[in-house]
């Protein structure tokens, strides 16, 4: 059963647990109850077929935010499942197009699918623009959506907003101020370029289009909602290096 040529299609129990964002012990329990069955290797250890894990996640999209949060917290970092992984901006652009196509088919979203798409596009593009050539470990972003629950999640393991903005505004010394700056001031983390407006546009569009946004970088998080121009920035209970965004519509 366990053949050498299958090795690259198999995950260890730890790798599978990391991708699912659960404990290996939970996977052992699921194996015994046939919820998610392992393959035994020559050493009798449990292995999991990558395809089985991907299928399981697709069929159990109960919390894409939790999955993304686990991904940014993983240490050491691992690539997300291929279905949620945009390694470069070309892949992201293709998947963003697919999201636009799916959203545009929903009658109740006909007046705002383009706003949802452009907000998603700006957040994803920001991750690539600010980390190109400088990804600390895993390049690219996590990008998943659950249209039934009307949620879109994006995450990156990049440098984070503080580190990026400090290059052009050295007086910034905490994530809270960096997050506020990113969403309110016209400042570019890509100096000497003078432009930087992606997150200002995101705020403006979320507030005007019956959407909600949760955004975290470092230990700072914010929540923006319809008709509320306050950023509601506060300290988060957990800290990580990159960025995590949840868009609800």
């Amino acid at each position, binding site marked *: 059963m366990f053949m050498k040529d299958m090795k690259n299609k198999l995950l260890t129990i730890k790798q599978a647990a990391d991708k699912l964002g659960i404990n290996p012990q939970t996977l052992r329990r699921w194996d015994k109850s046939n919820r998610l069955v392992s393959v035994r290797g020559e050493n009798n250890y449990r292995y999991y077929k990558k395809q089985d894990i991907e299928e399981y996640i697709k069929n159990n999209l109960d919390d894409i935010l939790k999955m993304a949060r686990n991904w940014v917290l993983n240490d050491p970092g691992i690539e997300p499942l291929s279905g949620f992984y945009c390694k470069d901006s070309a892949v992201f652009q293709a998947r963003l197009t697919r999201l636009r196509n799916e959203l545009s088919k929903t009658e109740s979203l006909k007046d705002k699918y*383009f706003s949802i*798409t*452009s907000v998603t596009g*700006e957040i994803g593009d920001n991750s690539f623009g600010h980390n190109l050539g400088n990804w600390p470990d895993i390049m690219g972003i996590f990008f998943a959506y659950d249209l039934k629950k009307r949620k879109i999640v994006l995450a990156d393991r990049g440098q984070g907003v503080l580190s990026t903005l400090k290059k052009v505004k050295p007086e910034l010394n905490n994530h809270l101020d960096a997050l506020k700056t990113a969403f309110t001031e*016209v400042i570019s983390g890509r100096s000497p370029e003078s*432009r930087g407006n*992606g997150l200002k546009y995101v705020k403006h569009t979320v507030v005007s289009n019956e959407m909600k946004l949760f955004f975290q970088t470092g230990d700072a998080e914010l929540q923006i909602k319809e008709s509320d121009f306050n950023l509601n920035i506060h300290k988060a209970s957990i800290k990580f290096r990159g960025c995590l965004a949840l868009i609800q519509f």
Partner: protein
Amino acid sequence: MTIYLKKFGTLLNGRMLGKEAFAAFLPSLKDVQGNEKIEVDCDGVDVFSPSWGDEFLSSLINKFGDRVVLKNAQGPSVKSTLEFLEGINKMKFKIED
């Protein structure tokens, strides 16, 4: 000369892609005459993000100044992004009906 934005795609997103679009189109701009108007036709563009728009339109305006005129810019995504860019960049686009 008229530039049809939909020929770059109906979902125009991303700073790098906006920059690339302008660079790729530059050779087509070399025959523009001294006083020739540059019309940018936005018809058919479904999603127009400010990052793409800023890169492409700002580069065009830097090169041709007020000879750049936007047409068919009433689509909701185009309209809202142009208004946003006007506010951020403290300028006004020339828009014709």
